[in-house]
């Protein structure tokens, strides 16, 4: 029940707004739907908070093996935050409907706002840390679109990109932290983790991984620069995202993990200095802004710093102060942003240099701004006064260094806060208009004043109702954050009597107010400030892109030899230790015929590097292949030797054919340095590979696997050539796939060559007869195919028991086919060759399927013996399979050859009957 209700309350705003947007309703109606959804969410969360149930509820297991689930954590603090998010969401969406009016882009913006509300609700309520991370990222992504919603404004896009890059870069370590916590503790549920006692180093590692996310998301120095830039978003968006919700996510995460990680020394050591710096710097920058919206943005930076600092103090009372200030700030800052939107509408400008005397035009707005800004400055009896009082009391409590840092930062930060608050109210609403505002802006309807009015009323009500707030809100929420009731704590109140905190408060307010009234706007810079984090970030981003372009220009822009060489060099470095070890070991003396083969191989390869003529080079390389075939023989692998020999013959013929008529390229010799580099790499690679082989050692053939095959081959497959049996029976699926690859490659060659040459107007291919060829060779060629056919059939049939088999037979047949093509210049029939290949492929596929009809797994073969002519004739269906291989290989290769063949102008046989290559 409660899990469904929670899911509903998370989804309601986005679903309702999404339905409205899909139905293409105007923005006003979409916003109304979203408001209804938000109110439903807020009241559901409040109802759940009133129920006694506390704890996690699981909606669905998602990836149980990875501990990922969709689950909600129903605690007082999560529900209170959900109420806050949904309530302010409702107010902002109501305001947005009035603010955007009938603008065309507004529907998308409103829908995105509702989606953002849903992701924020998911973030505060998620129990599973992975789900929390997902919602965390979702808020960032939605905010990217919201900040950049002004399509025509490139600086808005740049700001959106900054925000997204900074916050998601911070979130990546958090994901690692989540994985770390989950794998160490075998649970990703926050509730379950909070019940555990973590070891000190686990706490520190997890916290170190979480802190970047907190610091970037909550705009802490030095990663705060995205937040003022995000003011490119429309005002309702800023009011929601950049005051009340998203920027609070970091602080909220800190509160959530406080009982888990708060004991780590890193907690105070990082959070207090970072928060103090942010608090003071934000205040200082706010004083230098003339745009009131940017003033509010910097003020938010400063207040977030204050929150981080307070949480960083790490005591339970500090947490209590932070909780109160978190809510108080969300209320007054959302209200202030909405007020800024109202000022913009009413006066048509947001610049302090133009504004003034606005109270005459909109007295209600003035009153609201005064209350909300007063709360920000900490004037009694407003909410901000209460929370700041708590913070001051806490910060002055002890005399550790952190408290000295904290109290100094709070003192100066708060003086700034008072000063810019008073500047905001006085310069905008009081005095005289600085420039002619007549005819600009318009009156404000009640719809635009409603939301700030409600927020101002809230901030007003807290002071008089302090004891009620303490009993029903602050005490239970704090207890649920720290995991136990706070004992013996002074109840929240407006008046604690005269004490140090009160005196400090008085000093802050009076110094701040006076300093602002005395200096006025005289110190305000008119241009943009020179030292800007945004510009720094943008130039860093540009530089990284330039660096990337340059790097890829070096690594991947040039010829393949460059990046192949680099990759190879890197691999070689890794191979050095293994190679050294292998070469240092002892080796047995090699056998003489092996050494002779090596000598032949070396001579042939050296010659291949030397010769200029390409045909000679092809022949030498194939001679190397023959040497390898002989090595196969020495390794007792007759099947491999046969196959290798035929493959070499075939490839050589193929090469020779395709070189005909090609222009001989002027082989550019590389420059000296590059050439030596290449040689060094080549030799290094060779030595590394050779020492790898040496490291394998003179091992005996392993008996484990081959014993199985040696027993199984004769008994199960009725074959004596184990290699062939493996190919046609045990691992027949491999063979099938491989044969299909051969067919595809061969047909691919045919298509590649023919497709291109057909498009060129060409002379029709000349046949040998047309060229007037005569002689012995063409006559003999008529015999080649039938003879080769006999050889192939014998290889095929013997293959099961002796060296041979489908591949070898297919290769022999295709060599014959090539020869007859060349010699007889038979140019027709490449179609029939590919037909043969396809028949072969079909036979293979049929033999795969056929066994299914006998209830056997694919490619099961049958065996038997036929009594005929008084003798027993073994038969087996593996032969049929091998026949498929023969046809596929021979047909494919023949088709490729015939496609290549007519491509040269002029015949291939000259008058003497010799083949012209």
């Amino acid at each position, binding site marked *: 029940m409660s899990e469904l209700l929670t899911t509903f309350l998370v989804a309601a705003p986005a679903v309702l707004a999404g339905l409205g947007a899909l139905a293409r309703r105007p923005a006003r109606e979409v916003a109304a739907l979203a408001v209804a959804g938000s109110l439903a969410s807020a009241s559901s969360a409040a109802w759940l908070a009133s129920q006694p149930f506390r704890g996690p509820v699981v909606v669905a297991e998602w990836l149980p093996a990875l501990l990922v689930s969709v689950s909600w954590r129903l605690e007082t603090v999560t529900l209170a935050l959900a109420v806050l998010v949904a309530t302010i969401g409702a107010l902002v969406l109501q305001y947005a409907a009035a603010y955007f009016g009938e603008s065309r882009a507004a529907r998308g913006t409103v829908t995105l706002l509702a989606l953002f509300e849903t992701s924020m609700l998911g973030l505060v309520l998620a129990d599973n840390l992975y789900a929390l991370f997902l919602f965390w990222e979702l808020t960032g992504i939605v905010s990217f679109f919201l900040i950049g919603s002004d399509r025509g404004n490139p600086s808005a896009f740049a700001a959106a990109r900054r925000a997204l890059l900074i916050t998601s870069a911070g979130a990546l370590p958090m994901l690692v932290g989540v994985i770390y916590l989950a794998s160490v503790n075998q649970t990703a549920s926050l509730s379950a983790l909070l019940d555990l006692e973590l070891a000190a180093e686990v706490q520190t590692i997890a916290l170190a991984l979480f802190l970047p996310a907190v610091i970037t998301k909550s705009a802490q120095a030095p990663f705060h620069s995205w937040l003022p830039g995000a003011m490119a978003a429309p005002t309702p968006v800023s009011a929601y995202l950049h005051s009340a919700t998203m920027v609070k996510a970091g602080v909220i995460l800190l509160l959530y993990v406080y009982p888990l990680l708060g004991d780590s020394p890193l907690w105070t050591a990082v959070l207090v200095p970072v928060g103090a710096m942010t608090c003071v710097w934000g205040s200082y920058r706010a004083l230098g802004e003339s745009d009131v919206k940017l003033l509010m943005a910097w003020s938010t930076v400063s207040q977030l710093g204050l929150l981080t600092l307070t949480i960083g103090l790490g005591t339970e009372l500090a947490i209590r102060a932070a909780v109160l200030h978190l809510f108080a700030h969300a209320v007054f800052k959302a209200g202030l942003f909405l007020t800024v939107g109202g000022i913009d509408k009413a006066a048509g400008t947001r610049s302090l240099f133009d504004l003034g005397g606005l109270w005459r035009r909109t007295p209600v707005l003035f009153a609201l701004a005064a209350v909300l800004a007063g709360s920000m400055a900490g004037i009694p009896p407003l909410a901000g006064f209460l929370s700041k009082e708590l913070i001051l009391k806490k910060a002055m409590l002890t005399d550790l260094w952190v408290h000295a840092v904290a109290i100094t930062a709070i003192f100066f930060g708060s003086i700034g806060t008072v000063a810019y608050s008073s500047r905001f109210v006085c310069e905008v609403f009081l005095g005289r208009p600085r420039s002619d505002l007549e005819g600009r802006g318009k009156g404000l309807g009640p719809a635009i004043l409603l939301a700030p009015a409600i927020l101002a009323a809230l901030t007003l009500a807290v002071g008089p109702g302090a004891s009620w707030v303490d009993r029903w809100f602050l005490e239970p929420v704090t207890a649920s954050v720290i995991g136990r009731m706070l004992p013996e704590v002074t109840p929240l109140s407006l008046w604690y009597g005269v004490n140090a905190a009160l005196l400090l408060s008085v000093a802050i307010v009076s110094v701040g107010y006076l300093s602002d009234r005395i200096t006025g706007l005289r110190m305000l810079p008119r241009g943009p400030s020179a030292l800007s984090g945004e510009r720094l970030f943008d130039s860093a981003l540009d530089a990284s892109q330039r660096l990337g372009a340059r790097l890829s220009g070096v690594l991947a822009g040039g010829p393949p030899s460059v990046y192949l060489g680099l990759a190879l060099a890197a691999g070689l470095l890794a191979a050095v230790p293994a190679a050294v070890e292998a070469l240092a070991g002892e080796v047995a003396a090699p056998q003489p015929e092996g050494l002779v083969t090596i000598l032949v191989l070396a001579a042939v390869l050296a010659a291949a590097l030397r010769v200029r003529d390409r045909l000679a080079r092809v022949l030498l390389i194939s001679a*190397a292949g023959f040497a390898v075939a002989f*090595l196969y023989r020495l390794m007792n692998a007759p099947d491999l030797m046969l196959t290798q020999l035929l493959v070499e013959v075939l490839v050589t013929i193929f090469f020779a054919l395709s070189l005909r008529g090609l222009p001989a390229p002027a082989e550019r010799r590389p420059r000296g340095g590059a050439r030596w580099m290449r040689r060094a790499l080549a030799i290094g690679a060779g030595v590394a590979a050779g020492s790898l082989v040496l490291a394998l050692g003179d091992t*005996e*053939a*392993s008996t484990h696997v081959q014993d199985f095959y040696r027993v199984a081959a004769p008994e199960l497959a009725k074959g004596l050539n184990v290699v062939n049996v493996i190919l046609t029976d045990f691992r027949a699926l491999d063979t099938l796939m491989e044969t299909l690859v051969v067919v595809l490659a061969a047909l691919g*060659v045919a298509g590649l*060559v023919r497709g291109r040459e057909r498009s*060129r107007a060409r002379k029709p291919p000349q046949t040998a007869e047309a060229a007037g060829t005569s002689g012995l060779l063409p006559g003999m060629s008529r015999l080649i195919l039938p003879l080769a056919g006999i050889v192939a059939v014998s290889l095929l049939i013997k293959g099961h028991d002796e060296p041979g088999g489908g591949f070898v037979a297919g290769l022999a047949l295709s060599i014959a086919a090539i020869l007859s093509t060349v010699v007889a210049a038979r140019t027709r029939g490449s179609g029939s060759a590919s037909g043969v290949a396809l028949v072969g492929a079909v036979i293979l596929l049929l033999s795969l399927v056929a066994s299914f009809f006998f209830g056997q797994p694919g490619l099961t073969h049958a065996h038997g013996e036929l009594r005929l002519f008084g003798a027993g004739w073994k038969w087996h269906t593996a032969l049929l399979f091998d026949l498929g291989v023969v046809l596929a290989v021979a047909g494919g290769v023949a088709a490729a050859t015939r496609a290549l063949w007519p491509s040269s102008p002029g015949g291939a046989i000259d008058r003497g009957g010799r083949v012209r290559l």
Partner: protein
Amino acid sequence: MIVVLALAVTLLVAVGVELLLGRSLFRAILGLSLLAHAANLVVLAAGGVGPAAPILARDGVRGQTADPLPQALVLTAIVISMAVTLYLIGLLRAKARDLASVAVEPAPAGDGDREPAAVAVELGAPGGSR
């Protein structure tokens, strides 16, 4: 035997890499086929060396033989690398044609009397038709 194999692999890899790192597709194809030989020999070497071919006697007497499984795998590899080589040769052919046909059209002044084919840029120079 392992020393022989190690030497063969050393030679094949060294020359294969030397050919592969050149700028021409033609040399690269030759280099690749040498590297394929080397890889096949490594697989066989990993299977160990046996005293006889893995072909059983008809009467069922079974002596120790070489391991048939690496041989079957290498046989597959030989055929596959052949298919790849054939396809690369087809590419070489197709590319050469393209280059020749491109070079024919706007022959720069002074090159007019050269064979069109000779104008074709070196095969395999990446993107190098001009």
